[in-house]
């Protein structure tokens, strides 16, 4: 849950996170429709068919950059979180290097390994999450959500920009679609995934809001982590944050591995290479260095994440697929064969 959403939308932050999912659904629809026109091609490939060789390569390259930046941001968030909350003396570059190495190993094994990993981890991830949320529900005070929509609808929309760029990450399907077994079902399955994300993100926001109130959350860097620290039942159930960090790290490893794979795979497609493995090494270096040196400190990172990044993210998640689809419709292009 981003602090910026609570800062802007106050007690209506939970509506903002719900509203934000709209971006995810739009992106999914665009990508799904595009994908059905070119069931055997990834975005860099049909980009070239639609826009011509040069422009297509530029669009493909832009997506490589997008995946790279998303991954660098995730890695940097990961190391910042650990250095702030658990190991303040350890330099961030160590965490960056470790997670990139793990990601590199998974990415080198291909998409199926990452997918199976996600399949295996999902229950491990969901169970503690539900447990944690369940344990704090007795302390909820629904009154803290009032007054409903105090500042009108505008702050809610502004607050929803950041989570919208998260939901929009479903745009990764532009690369994955040709690898899916049943591409026709992608819209339904994707919508289910988005709904699940919507459910958990909204209930998390709702519960954090009703416990700490909007004023405090807006100032917290990691509201959910603080919520987990709040759990305390006598001497027996407390200090749950170690469990939470463990689970969260598993999730981050998958995300990093996945985006790492996307960076390498898309690059190989744009450059028409045979395999993506050689790119793994360069990407590792770029990601470690990028995550370490791109941002000087945490405030700069959170500033970037909450102000500068969302428009760019949304451009790639909604804007570009929309343009491509428009071009495809106007030029009546379908995949040959």
């Amino acid at each position: 849950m981003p602090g910026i959403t609570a800062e802007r939308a106050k007690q209506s932050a939970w509506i903002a996170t719900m509203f934000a999912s709209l971006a995810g659904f739009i992106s999914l629809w665009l990508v799904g429709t595009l994908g059905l026109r070119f069931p055997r091609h990834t975005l860099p490939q049909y980009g070239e068919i639609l826009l011509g060789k040069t422009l297509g390569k530029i669009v493909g390259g832009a997506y490589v950059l997008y995946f790279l930046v998303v991954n660098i941001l995730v890695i940097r968030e990961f190391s910042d979180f650990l250095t702030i909350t658990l190991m303040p003396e350890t330099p961030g570059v160590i965490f960056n290097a470790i997670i990139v190495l793990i990601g590199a190993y998974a990415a080198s094994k291909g998409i199926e390994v990452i997918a199976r990993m996600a399949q295996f981890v999902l229950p491990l991830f969901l169970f503690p999450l539900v447990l944690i949320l369940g344990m704090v529900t007795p302390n909820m005070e629904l009154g803290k959500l009032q007054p409903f929509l105090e500042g009108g609808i505008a702050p809610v929309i502004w607050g929803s920009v950041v989570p919208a760029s998260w939901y929009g990450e479903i745009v990764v399907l532009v690369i994955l679609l040709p690898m899916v077994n049943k591409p026709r079902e992608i819209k339904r399955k994707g919508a289910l995934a988005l709904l699940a994300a919507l459910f958990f993100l909204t209930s998390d926001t709702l519960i954090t809001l009703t416990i700490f109130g909007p004023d405090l959350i807006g100032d917290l860097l990691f509201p959910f982590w603080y919520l987990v620290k709040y759990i305390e039942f006598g001497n027996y159930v407390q200090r749950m944050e170690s469990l939470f960090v463990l689970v969260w790290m598993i999730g981050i490893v998958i995300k990093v591995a996945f985006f790492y794979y996307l960076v390498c795979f898309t690059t190989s497609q744009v450059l028409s290479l045979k395999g993506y493995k050689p790119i793994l090494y360069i990407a590792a270096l770029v990601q470690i260095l990028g995550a370490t040196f791109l941002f000087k400190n945490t405030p700069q990172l959170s500033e970037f994440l909450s102000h500068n990044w969302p428009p760019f993210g949304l451009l790639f998640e909604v804007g570009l697929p929309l343009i491509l689809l428009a071009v495809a419709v106007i030029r009546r292009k379908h995949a040959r064969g």
Partner: protein
Amino acid sequence: MKKRCLILGLLILVILQSALLTGCWSSKEVEKLAIVTLVGIDYARENGSDVWTVTARILNPNANGKGEDQQSTGKGKQDILLQGKGRTQQDAILDYSAHSSRSPFYAHHSAYLFGEEAARKKMADITENIMRFWQTRPKNLMIVTKGKAQQVLEAGAAVDNLLSNELKELAEYKAAATGYSYGVIMSDFTAWLESSDRDAVASLVKVVPPDLPGSDRQNLMEGLAVFRADKLVGWLNKEETRGYLLIAQKISRGQMSIPVKKDDKLFSYFLGSSKSKIESLVTGDKISYRVTIKTLGEVDDNAGIELGADDIREVESAINDRLRELAMMAVDKSKEYDSDFLGFSEKLHRSKLVTWKKLGQDWRDSFREADVEIVVDAKVVRTGKIGKKLNIKQ
């Protein structure tokens, strides 16, 4: 050949791992930690400059294990008192930790104590400092002490081995239930300070002089400290605290004994649970509030009152009057201190947005002028006795 290389590679990996297993930069041996259990912060202004005094109770590293040594030393040796002084808070904290070779570790620390002077002048700075420190926890207690925080820390625990345990247990299980005080936690306190419609309270602990011969100074958690914005403005005594609990908090598993007078006879109403609801009523320009309090309890020592079905009704109305009195005392204090710690304006903000927006910065004034009506519905569920009134000749 290839297989041999693989085995060699694995071996190197395993050896490398054992180097990693000792931990990272941030690993700290338990023996190197000074586990802080309580921190007291005092502030004074001397010769035109700030003087912060930070007093901490730290677990005694030699007191673990239940050897015979420990029995002879007895309680009080479980933890050690350290103190530091400085021009800034951080300065004072580093100063006290300079007294020990171990580095302070706050993850097991249960409460912050603030001296009266610190709470009156510097509460915003202190809250900022501790709230944003990563080792503190949302459920750390916020306790204001009468006089200096140092005195409370010096007095030590009465029954428990550790003062920190005692304060924590008191605040969590006993304070609200017995109606003596309320355990205010850091996340609530900060949210109150930050909110635009409510003022904060904090638990109050004071050192009481020994009543019993032979006993040392003791701490007593009684009453609440009232804040107006970020400044301490006054105290609530035991009765006003009960009024606060009745209006602003929900009591369950209570063991609160409230003396009630009926026909010149005093008896105890043993309050088990209470719920309250604040309603804001706006008629024209006038704002008023109605509080509905519902309580369940029993009458324990009946002091010669026969409790038949009809009698209970009369007893209940006497209890209602008494509880209303208690609640009114809290409301009066709230108006006197000009601090809306009971949450009336918060209710107005939440339910009557239009009126609230007209008030703007003057919300405390509007509360001061508002009428508060309190409706109490107290029930006597049990008499708590296993027989009828005894006929003892007098």
